[in-house]
């Protein structure tokens, strides 16, 4: 059966900052959506279906598009809501990809957003840990000890980071370098949240230690922001853009839920940095995309890295090098904007994290690099293919999309 080519013809962002008190959710999303319509040269009437998602518990609004989507162009359109935690934005892109690839809908608007200042994201994230905490209470673990995990995601990330450092030889200096690289890239990105031009690894090393090995400078900010993109068939894309970015493939893979390596059911004992499911999702996505050697064929990577070690860890898990090689590749300068395989040229999630939108922004940033529309953050090398990633859940969900300047060879 012939594959229906799926291409990105427009992307749009809202302004991303800590607290958007000047707009409500629907208005915030409209900023991104209207920019997206303009970028694609399309109007709401041109849209055949809409896919949307966010993490509804963070804002305290259940299924917010029920009152918002009419303002975004979804009036009387088919609409599907896809939410999977930190991977939500990526899962929304996957949904839009499948909607076009199914042959049922030609032009699909994908929307992902988070307005964290309306609620309490850390409280939302702590509910994720309840199952693990409950099980450990039963096993007699001191509640005071568990309280040390507080702070939602950070308490979990330190386990993963320490394990990754042990396995790979990554040092705290590498973590500092990752933050400096990303925040400097972010300074070139008009849509990013935390811009720190000239930030050095030494500056990062001076920030407060939250819990070993993670310092304040290694952690993403909490962002209000929205992202939108329009995908359409390969045929229609060429009428809208000289150089559309094709979504060659999408794959997700889910592992057992185990925040600190031990699951609530007591059945799992695993290394939170292993992320075997990320490797599997990457393998499936590369296979579908016809990519045999990702290390040579991928020109740019946007791994989902809200914590510094994750940029290196996921670089490995996306099969872009052997396990344990990423720290040395970082040292070589290959991951820089002018490097051989630039990583997070947008500044990454460590600079901007509107949680529900973040995994979609990995895709839109790779698309902009392929379309040559990334402005000051455009990488120096020619970009033909890129990989975009999303991560979340109880460290157990991964989504991968492979993009290209040429359609899939089916």
């Amino acid at each position: 059966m012939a594959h229906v080519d799926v291409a990105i013809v427009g992307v749009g962002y809202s302004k991303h900052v800590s607290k958007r008190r000047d707009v409500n959710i629907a208005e915030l999303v409209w900023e991104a959506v209207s920019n997206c319509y303009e970028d694609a040269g399309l109007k709401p009437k041109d849209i055949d279906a809409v896919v949307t998602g966010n993490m509804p518990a963070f804002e305290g609004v259940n299924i917010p598009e029920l009152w918002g989507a009419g303002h975004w162009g979804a009036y009387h359109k088919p609409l599907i809501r896809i939410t999977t935690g930190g991977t939500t934005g990526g899962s929304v892109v996957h949904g839009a990809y499948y909607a076009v690839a199914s042959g049922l809908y030609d032009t699909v608007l994908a929307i992902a957003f988070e307005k964290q200042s309306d609620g309490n994201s850390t409280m939302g994230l702590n509910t994720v840990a309840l199952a693990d905490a409950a099980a450990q209470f039963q096993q007699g673990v001191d509640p005071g000890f568990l309280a040390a995990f507080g702070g939602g995601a950070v308490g979990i990330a330190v386990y993963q980071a320490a394990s990754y450092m042990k396995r790979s030889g990554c040092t705290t200096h590498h973590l500092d370098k990752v933050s400096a690289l990303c925040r400097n890239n972010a300074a070139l990105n008009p849509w990013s949240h935390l811009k720190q031009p000239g930030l050095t690894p030494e500056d990062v090393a001076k920030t407060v230690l939250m819990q070993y090995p993670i310092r304040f400078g290694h952690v993403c900010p909490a962002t209000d922001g929205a992202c939108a993109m329009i995908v359409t068939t390969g045929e229609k894309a060429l009428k809208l853009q000289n150089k559309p970015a094709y979504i060659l493939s999408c794959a997700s893979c889910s592992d057992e839920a185990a925040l600190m390596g031990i699951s609530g059911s007591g059945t799992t004992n695993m290394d939170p940095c292993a992320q075997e499911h990320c490797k599997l999702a990457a393998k499936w996505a590369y296979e579908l995309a016809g990519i045999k050697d990702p290390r040579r064929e991928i020109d740019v990577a946007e791994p989902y890295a809200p914590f510094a070690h994750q940029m290196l860890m996921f670089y490995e898990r996306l099969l872009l090098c052997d396990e344990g090689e990423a720290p040395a590749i970082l040292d070589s300068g290959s991951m820089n904007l002018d490097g051989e395989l630039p990583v997070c040229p947008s500044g990454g999630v460590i600079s901007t994290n509107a949680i529900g939108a973040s995994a979609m922004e990995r895709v839109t940033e790779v698309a902009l690099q392929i379309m040559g529309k990334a402005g000051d953050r455009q990488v120096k090398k020619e970009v033909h293919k890129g990989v975009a990633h999303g991560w979340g859940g109880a460290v157990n969900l991964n989504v991968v999309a492979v993009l290209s300047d040429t359609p899939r060879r089916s």
Partner: protein
Amino acid sequence: MRREVAIISYAQTPYEPDANASREMQVLRVAKAALAAAGLKQEDRYTVVTANNDYCDGRTISNMRLVEPAAAWMKNESKAEMDGAYAALYGLLRILSGDHDIALIIGESQASVYARWLPGIMMMDPTFDRQRWLLNEVSAAALQARAYMNAFGVSEEQVAGVAAKNLDNAALNPLAGNKLAGADAAKVLGSRKLYEPISEMMVAQYCDGACAMVIAAGELAEKAEKPVWIRGVGFAHDSYLTERSLEEMGSLKLAAEKAYAMAGISDPASQVDLAEVHENFAHEELMAYEALGFCGRGEGGAFFDSGATRRDGKLPVNTSGGAIGANVACATGLARIIEAAMQIRGEAGDHQVAKAKTAVATGQTGPCAQESVVFVLGGE
């Protein structure tokens, strides 16, 4: 459609007000049973789409802890945060793309462990309606019921009659949790008034449960013993309830038009043998008759009075008892698809109807049936 996609197998838990099992256990049971009935093993390649809601789970990322029980470990998995029929829709899109051949679809929630009406209140416009605390799923439905009844002269007896029919049908469905053999309109009207004109027995009460279904294209579908083919599908979003006319189900009408066009149905009243409709309230079933084209606009009450939608009528609706018989948030629409497929296969037991070659199943999300999805199913 680019590929022929069939329902291969299904499984449902009993739907109970307070099940003696965790949601994970309920999901494990239906996932195992549906895979086994399809002849599939955990190591086979398939994709998994679940339907659940963070507010019903009481914590964020409601699919995260379902990976193991949903047989999604090391699988390509995703979640539609809507009614279960949307999970089926997303699974269908995945298969039609050609990237996947088999999808396991699961819908679930446990009403006994959350405040049943709170997720509905959290759906309301936070900038205005939430602040006033007047609108919830039932009060919003009461506004719609009254608007519809006033516009077309539909009586409270007719609305109550629908509830009585579904409660009586549910008595023949061993899985339904809300049943009353021999129920009549007077009994329904005598139940506690919630919001005028809605009384307690007109409401599809939330309960616990899970259901699963395997859909497939290609080899598995061709070799299946009694495949039920997905002939058409449509879905649509309508405006928020205060920004549209509540007299009709706009999204269901649009979805049905798409699904019928795909399935080649021009006269649903004569071409559809049976319907399983997701009615959160009794009046919604009358409105659905109209939106689905079983009768003309405003004729839902008269169509019901004709007896056409009873078990022995010419177009039985909700022979399973419908959502009034068993309403599991994020599973109800999927259960409608499963019940319609059971009828086509002749596996519906005591509530089996005589003729079911072509069936319609619907799902909905949001207050006043704001978003709808329609499936048209057919046998060989």
